[in-house]
Structures are given as structure tokens and as C-alpha cells.
């Protein structure tokens, strides 16, 4: 199977190469040119600075979303009254395309990482909050009964029963949140001009350095891949007991 997978990947690169030879005037650099540009870039400081800016904004953004969104969501979900009261508001806020506020934050903060960060947090926090509310609603009533019957309370009840129980749902929200977070980070840089991979793509494009532009797009894809794979691995580790991960690695 690995051979087949490698074959398909190779086929993909081959198609890219075929396209690059057909498009006139250096429109599409070949895979070789692109990797050459990438290697050259990797030796420069500005490249790593741009990558670092993007990674930093992404990480801080998702961290703020988690630290604020998860506890708020869980607290709201524990109360029926609070759940009902906030449902419509959250629903509306969730559906506002986060990019709508890009011009506003651009006016307020200029083309800075802060600008991107504000937009990222305001855009990515809603799926996390909403899934956390849902999670706290979905706790197993029989485990609640069990905890009461055996007089398990306070901190221990939270850490051994409540948190593991809500984790699968919270992580579902986090998964959507991270995807949106990365997309918005790159978008904010690309459209708003804040330093990072996004604006580097534009700079390369404006200086008509297509191989370099492609190299940056490849870096963006790699970053996305690392985030996805990392998330999946973390999820499997934390939720090894969950039906969706059971049995894996057992045989």
C-alpha cells in the first residue's frame, strides 16, 4: 500500500511537472525549480522569520481560543438557562464570515500580527465555544449518578469524570477551530499585509519570482499538513479509549 501511495504522490508531482512545461512564459515553475527556490530560501533569515511569524500568530491565536472558549463553553453548557440564552447569539456570531471584520481590525491595528491575531481569535473561537457547550450537555447521566452515589465530588469529579467525558466533543470543535485558525492567519497576512507566509507569497508574486511564490505555497501546505497530522496524533493519544480509536495498534 505504501508503494501505491508513493506512486500516487509521484504521479501528482509528474502532473505538476507536465503542466509547468505546457504553460508559457514561466507561469508555473517546475517541481525542480520550486524545490530549488525552497532550498535557497531555507538558507535565508527572512524566510524563517516569516514562517515564525505565521506559526506564532497561529499558536497564540489557537491558545487564546482554547483558554477562553473551552471553559466559557463548558460553563454555559452546564446550565440549561445559559445554554438557551446564548444559543441564538452564538449561532449568529458563528455564521458571520470572520473575514468581514478584516477591514475594521486593519484600521484599528494596521498590518501587524496583532491585527491578524484579533481576527483569528474572533473567527476561530465560535466552533470551539459551541462544541464545548454541546459537550457539557452530553455528559453521561449514569456517570453523574455514579459519582453522586459513591460521593465523588469537587476537583476529583471534574478531573476523572467530567473532563474525560467532554473531551471527545471539545476536540471536535478544536479540530474545526485549528483549521479555521490557520486559514485565517494566512488570509490575514495575505490580504492585510501583516508579516508572515501569506504576505511573503504576495511579495514573491509582485517581484515576479514565481518559483519563490510556489515555494511559499508549498511551505503553507506543509504547515497545514503538520497541524493536521499533529492534531490527529494528539487526538489519538488522548482519546485512545474512545470508540473511534479503539482497536488501533492493538494487533
Amino acid at each position, binding site marked *: 500500500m505504501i508503494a501505491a501511495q508513493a506512486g500516487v504522490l509521484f504521479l501528482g508531482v509528474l502532473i505538476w511537472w507536465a503542466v509547468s512545461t505546457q504553460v508559457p512564459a514561466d507561469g508555473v515553475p517546475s517541481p525542480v525549480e520550486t524545490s530549488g527556490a525552497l532550498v535557497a530560501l531555507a538558507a535565508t533569515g527572512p524566510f524563517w522569520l516569516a514562517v515564525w511569524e505565521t506559526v506564532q500568530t497561529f499558536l497564540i491565536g489557537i491558545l487564546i481560543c482554547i483558554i477562553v472558549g473551552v471553559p466559557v463553553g463548558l460553563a454555559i453548557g452546564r446550565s440549561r438557562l445559559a445554554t438557551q440564552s446564548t444559543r441564538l447569539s452564538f449561532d449568529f456570531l458563528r455564521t458571520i464570515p470572520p473575514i468581514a471584520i478584516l477591514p475594521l481590525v486593519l484600521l484599528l491595528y494596521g498590518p501587524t500580527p496583532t491585527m491578524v491575531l484579533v481576527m483569528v481569535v474572533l473567527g476561530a473561537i465560535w466552533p470551539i465555544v459551541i462544541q464545548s457547550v454541546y459537550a457539557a450537555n452530553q455528559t453521561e447521566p449514569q456517570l453523574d449518578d455514579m459519582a453522586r*452515589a*459513591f460521593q465523588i*465530588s469537587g476537583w476529583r469529579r471534574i478531573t476523572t*469524570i467530567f473532563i*474525560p467525558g467532554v473531551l471527545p466533543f471539545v476536540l471536535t470543535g478544536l479540530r474545526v477551530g485549528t483549521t479555521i485558525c490557520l486559514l485565517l492567519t494566512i488570509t490575514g497576512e495575505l490580504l492585510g499585509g501583516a508579516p508572515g507566509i501569506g504576505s511573503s507569497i504576495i511579495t514573491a508574486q509582485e517581484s515576479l519570482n514565481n518559483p519563490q511564490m510556489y515555494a511559499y505555497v508549498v511551505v503553507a501546505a506543509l504547515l497545514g499538513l503538520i497541524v493536521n497530522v499533529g492534531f490527529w496524533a494528539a487526538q489519538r493519544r488522548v482519546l485512545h479509549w474512545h470508540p473511534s480509536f479503539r482497536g488501533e495498534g492493538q494487533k
Partner: protein
Amino acid sequence: MTTTSATQSAPSGASGEDRPELAAVGLGHGYGDNEVLGSIDFAVARGEFVCLVGPSGVGKSTLLRCLAGLQLPRRGSVQVKGVDMKAPVWGVAVVFQDYSRSLMPWSTVIDNVALPLVAAGTKKKDARVAVLEALEQVGLTRDAAEKYPWQLSGGMQQRVAIARALAYKPSVVLMDEPFASVDAQTRADLEDLMRELQRELDITVVLVTHDIDEAVYLSDRVVVLSGSPASVAEIVPIDLPRERDQITTKATPAFADARARIYGLIRRVPVDTHE
């Protein structure tokens, strides 16, 4: 619907000076306008095995939740050794109906069983000893202790739930349809296990079931619930020897008599089931 006859009878095996281990006194409960339990009175003596039977929808589980202190009744009270129960108390352990939902899938068997002890402040080492002892009592190996509940069969999972109750060193164990979701052979094994443990450890067991044969086989006395709202139709003493056997005991005339009597009690009163 008559709140009845056979209620305040003193439990047969109670020694005179002792208060009953567990008692329902004029207990009534309902949800909204729907009265589920009318007025329930019965008492369970120390070391007794009592089953609550009744048609489905009669409110058996509600009654058990009240006895466990998980729900405050609307009327009347539950008394543990003569003291009104306001919340779950130490010494009363519960085995829930659905092992797949009452065991934590994210914790190993040993952690599941240890949790109530650790929460009560038992040292980790002591808890481990108590847990392994309880697992041995229910017939689980050291090997199973390190597994996750969902890696075990249904019958073994229910044994884990029973071990969790035993490790708590309870004087009373409440069980809500504990064998409803296992196959017939496993069910017979678990029934025998419960009787054996109850005598060996000298604990009081109150078990809810809809299965009349199971109730007769297990019990010293059977509390028959019927009507809507439910009340105690009768408390049937079971005249069977202490040593019981799935085949021979169930073939005795005494067994057949008790079963026929309880069938009659449940059938007599028309019940509108809510299912």
C-alpha cells in the same frame, strides 16, 4: 391502587433491638403531574436479600434512585438505620443497570473500581489492595484489572461494576436490573455470584428486576409493586433453603408456589404501562 395491607410487617430475620438497615417510609414520588409512586412502605433487615419486582413502567427504577439518595422523594422518606437520608451516604453502594454507561471508558478496570475509594481519601496503596481483593471476589483476574472495561465481555464488565460496589465496603448494595443486558448463562453465573457474596460478606442487597424467576431465586423476600401510582401489593416471603441451585431449586414446589403467587399479584391489578 389501595395502599395496603402487607406493608409495615417487621422483616423476618431482624433481630429485635436493631433498626432496619434500610426502609422506605410512606415514600411517594412523581414527575410533573405524573404520580409514579403512591405510598411505599417496606423495611429491609441487615443481611437480607430483597428483590423489588413489578411490571415495566411501574416506577421500580425511580424507587431505587430514591433508596440510593440520588433523588429526594416528594413524600415520606428513606431511612438508613433509622436516620433520614437526604443525600447518598457512605455505606450504600449502587450497581447501575447499564455497565457500558456507568463504567468510565477512559479508565482501566482498576482505576474504575478504585475511584470511589481514592475519592474518599484512601491511600493509593491501600486502595489497590482493596480493589484487587474485590476483583478477586467477583472472579476477575489480575490480567483483567489492567484492561479497559470495553475490552471485556458484557458479563465481565458487570462484574467490574459489582467489584466497584464491593470495594466500597458497603453494608447495603442497591442494584438496578443488573443482569438485564447479559446472556442467559452469564446471568445465571452472576446471580449465583451475588448470592454467594451477599452471604460471605454479610451485606444487605436490594435488587430491582422485572424477572419474577430471578427475584424468587435470589431473594429472602420479594416486594411486589403494582398499580399506578405504584404501591406495595404484597411482600412475599420466599421459603427456600439458603443453599440454592439454578436447576434443583427452581424445580422445587416452593419455588413454583412463590412464582405463581407473584405472577398472580402482578396480573391482578391492571396497570397502564407507559411504554
